[in-house]
Every structure is written in structure tokens, then in C-alpha cells.
């Protein structure tokens, strides 16, 4: 299976600032995804990030608010820009593990609180 790490694990940020979340995988993967999990809720897809192409965003999420980088096959970043308290959530990256039969594995998450 793929082992995924995220940094930071948690942060408390002020309204109007930005935070960049890093996702590192121990193997090369083509497909990476970013999800948001609001308190007590299930997971909602923010965007799909493929290496070498622009990220594809879901309805309700825009690049200006959630810019994503995917510089290589093991790393991605998600930035939450101009934050408001409504952005307080857990942000999760996941990868599709082709060698394992296209299973999808998740990182431990980044718990963001905006004050």
C-alpha cells in the first residue's frame, strides 16, 4: 500500500491569511486527490491533481481559493487562501494505488481552525 504523510497535522490560522498543506507519498502515483471533511460530515472532493496538468476542480471550489500544485509524482500542495471561519475543516489528500488494483489511500489529514 501507499504511505502518505501530510504537513502540518493541524493549525490555527487567522481570518484573511493563507495556509499551504503538503502531501507526500512514498511511491510514485499518477492520481492524487484533495478532499475536505467539515466537522461531523463526510468527505467532499475539492479537486483532482495529476502530475503535468492543471488540477480539475469540483463544482463549488475554485482555483483562486484553493490553488494546487503537483510538481512531481510523489508530492502535492493545497493552499487555502484568504481564509474565513467557514474553511475550518479537515483537509485530506488521497492517492490511487495502481499496483494494488486501484485502491485509494488517504493521508492522516490536516485539521484547520480559522479564527
Amino acid at each position, binding site marked *: 500500500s501507499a504511505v502518505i504523510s501530510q504537513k502540518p497535522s493541524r493549525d490555527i490560522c487567522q481570518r484573511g491569511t493563507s495556509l499551504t498543506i503538503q502531501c507526500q507519498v512514498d511511491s510514485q502515483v499518477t492520481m492524487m486527490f484533495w478532499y475536505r471533511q467539515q466537522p461531523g460530515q463526510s468527505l467532499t*472532493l475539492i479537486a*483532482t491533481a495529476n502530475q503535468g496538468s492543471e488540477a480539475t476542480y469540483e463544482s463549488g471550489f475554485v482555483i483562486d481559493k484553493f490553488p494546487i500544485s503537483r510538481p512531481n509524482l510523489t508530492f502535492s500542495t493545497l493552499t487555502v487562501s484568504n481564509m474565513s471561519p467557514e474553511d475550518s475543516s479537515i483537509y485530506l489528500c488521497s492517492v490511487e494505488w495502481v499496483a494494488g488494483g486501484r*485502491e485509494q489511500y488517504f*493521508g*492522516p489529514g490536516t485539521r484547520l481552525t480559522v479564527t
Partner: protein
Amino acid sequence: EDQVTQSPEALRLQEGESSSLNCSYTVSGLRGLFWYRQDPGKGPEFLFTLYSAGEEKEKERLKATLTKKESFLHITAPKPEDSATYLCAVQALDTGRRALTFGSGTRLQVQP
């Protein structure tokens, strides 16, 4: 639009009391149905992927089954350490879309 509905929302069992969790789905074409376990404050932990109706997979006290409209996660003789939220998700056959659509989860509590 793909939809996933899980029931019940919450389930409380006594240790050793077997039960099943339900995941009903609507998808234009199913590439795979995924089950995850999520503990508080952690990312989802992969359990199973099912690809076709009639398929079954087992892991310790858990067994997942799949029909054309729903999946069941059977928990046999659960232990307190099985307490967690269980998430179901589908992956559609749409070309290029590999992300998952999740249900809202079932919160399982197993009491000793």
C-alpha cells in the same frame, strides 16, 4: 449525479452482537465500491474494494458484499476496538474521473 446513502447513521452493539451496515448507491456505471474505517481525528483507513455484483471480501470480523444497488458490511462478533465510523464510497466508470463519492457514514459503537 452519483449518490451514496448509508444506514443506519449510528449503531450501538454489545460485544459479540453481529450486525450489518448498508450502503445504497446510484451511479451511471460502477467502477468500484469502497469501504473505509475512520477513527476520530484520523484519515480514512482502506478496508475493501468491490467491483462486481456478487463479489464478497473478508477481513477479520468484517465481510463486504455487493449487489447492483447496494453493499453490506457485515460485522461478526464485534469487539470494542471495532468502534469507528464506517464510510462507503463509489467510483464511477466516467472516463477520467477517478475520485470517490462518499456516503455520510455509519458511526458504530461496540460496548463491552
